[in-house]
């Protein structure tokens, strides 16, 4: 009886009607992206409390089959020798309104591009493709692993896009657009993108953020311009994503102060009710 009361007491006092359904689909990767999601700590709990129901997730929910959801966050690349992975990603597309490639393996193949098979106990598993090679993807969150803050920002903006008022929808749309454009741009990411689309286009200003964003320190600066060690590059696409000359939506970035406040507010809102 005591226990029942306790269980009753932990249930949500006010169920939030307009929560979105969120799923985390885990394919071939190192689980670093999941760790990044979890590294939002209270922010992540806040998102699950007020904004989203986690309806699918390898480690957190006991659901065997991919359900209908608003936002599917996909981590890892698809091993095309593994029938189940291929089916999973196709089903994910079918059942989700928005598919988000979480991290560089899902977006660009990343380190899994370097797989040559030969792994115990599935030596024939050798071809790993970013999910965009199999299905249409709506949003990329590049990074190896993606930063908790970017995941948080995209989560809040995706919520506003689906459930916000008109003004919030417009802001969320503008915020997400460059990440949607990255998803349209292609399924390979590499230091070469900086060479082809920034330096060769006469756009590089030698600010150095590419080197700061490189997880394997493959980028140095020669003559003030980035120089990539292609033997070190893991093809995560972070340098290109971070470059202010890959995309710079002034109308959003100039509002950095207000938007940071909105996001912080969204994650604090209702805390006093607890």
């Amino acid at each position, binding site marked *: 009886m005591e226990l029942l009361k306790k269980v009753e007491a932990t249930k949500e006092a006010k169920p939030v009607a307009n929560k979105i359904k969120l799923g985390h689909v885990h394919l071939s990767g190192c689980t670093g992206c999941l760790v*990044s999601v979890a*590294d939002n700590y209270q922010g992540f709990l806040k998102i699950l409390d007020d904004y989203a129901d986690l309806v699918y997730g390898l480690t957190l929910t006991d659901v065997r089959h991919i359900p209908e959801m608003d936002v599917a966050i996909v981590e890892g690349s698809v091993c095309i020798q593994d029938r189940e992975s291929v089916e999973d990603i196709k089903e994910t597309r079918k059942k989700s309104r928005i598919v988000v490639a979480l991290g560089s393996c899902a977006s660009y193949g990343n380190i899994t591009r370097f797989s040559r098979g030969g792994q115990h106990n599935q030596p024939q598993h050798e071809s790993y493709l970013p999910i965009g090679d199999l299905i249409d993807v709506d949003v990329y969150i*590049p*990074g*190896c*692993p*993606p*930063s*908790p*803050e*970017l995941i948080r*920002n995209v989560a809040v903006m995706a919520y506003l896009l689906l459930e916000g008022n008109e003004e919030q929808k417009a802001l969320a749309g503008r*915020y997400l657009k*460059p*990440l949607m454009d990255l998803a349209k741009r292609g399924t390979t990411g590499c230091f070469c993108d900086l060479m082809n*689309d920034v330096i060769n*286009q*006469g*756009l*590089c*200003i*030698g*600010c*150095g*953020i*590419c*080197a*700061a*964003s*490189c*997880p394997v320190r493959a*980028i140095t*600066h020669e*003559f*003030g*311009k*980035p120089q990539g060690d292609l033997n070190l590059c893991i093809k*995560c696409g*972070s340098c290109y*994503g*971070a*470059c*202010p*000359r*890959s*995309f*710079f*939506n*002034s109308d*959003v*970035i*100039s509002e*950095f*102060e207000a*938007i*940071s406040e909105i996001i912080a507010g969204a994650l604090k809102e209702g805390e006093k009710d607890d």
Partner: protein
Amino acid sequence: MIEDPYLGKYLTCVSARSTDKEILKKAQDGGIATTLMVYALEQGIIDGAIVAGKGDLPWKPRPFVAMSREDILKAQRAKYNISPQISWLKEATRSFGLDKVGITGVCCQMQAVRKAQLYPINMRDVPGKIAFTVGLFCMVNFPYDSIQALVEDHANQSLSSVKKMEFGKGKFFVHTERGNVTTVPLKETHKYEQPGCHVCLDYVSNLADISTGSVGSPDGWSTVFIRTKVGNEIWSKAVAEGLFETKPIEEVKPGLGLVMKLAKEKIDKNRKTLEERRNFGVNKALRDPYA
């Protein structure tokens, strides 16, 4: 909050000069950026600052993380050539363990920092640690070899003898340690500019917490834009503590009009460049990063 298409958003704009004699002695103009960073460091607002310090060649900047007043003072004066400062953004929070990072830089570097704040791609734990940014006015930047060509070939001075370089009044000034001043007309410097600067749509570091530069203020003074809440708080405290002499921008010559004129010139010209890029060559368009 004032919003201007050329000067960006700002709360106030003043003309100011540092009261710190040591800083003023070696300052490019009013010593604003140096004084602010030293103040922020001493007040614990930042744990360290990413600045453009002395490199291995004369006047070649080396980005580094300054952790003391002495370190920050070493970074004084404009070098007018590329310093990939933001390459230390994440490293400052890692190897240096800074929880509150200060950053000085030019307009495009502020763009990189703010983009990293809103779109922190592979910037784990960085956005929340950007504590204070001071932006510098910037018309254009040069590769190091360009500066070498301008100083050594055009101005006929050895780079190692140079005390101060300065762009202004339609000329490039090279001051040597022995007191010689050589000038190069601006039109001769244009071809040496970094091409990436020709699409930049910012002159006065619109995205910094505080931005500063000589234009608009009398010699030895700087124009200062206070742009964000963070910037305003730090500026108000620093002024209250007597770190700066200030004058209303309306009362100084040449004043905000000149800043606006130059900002308009740069931005309009670069907008045109962006348009021209769409029809570059045989209808072969070039990328527009702002699209």
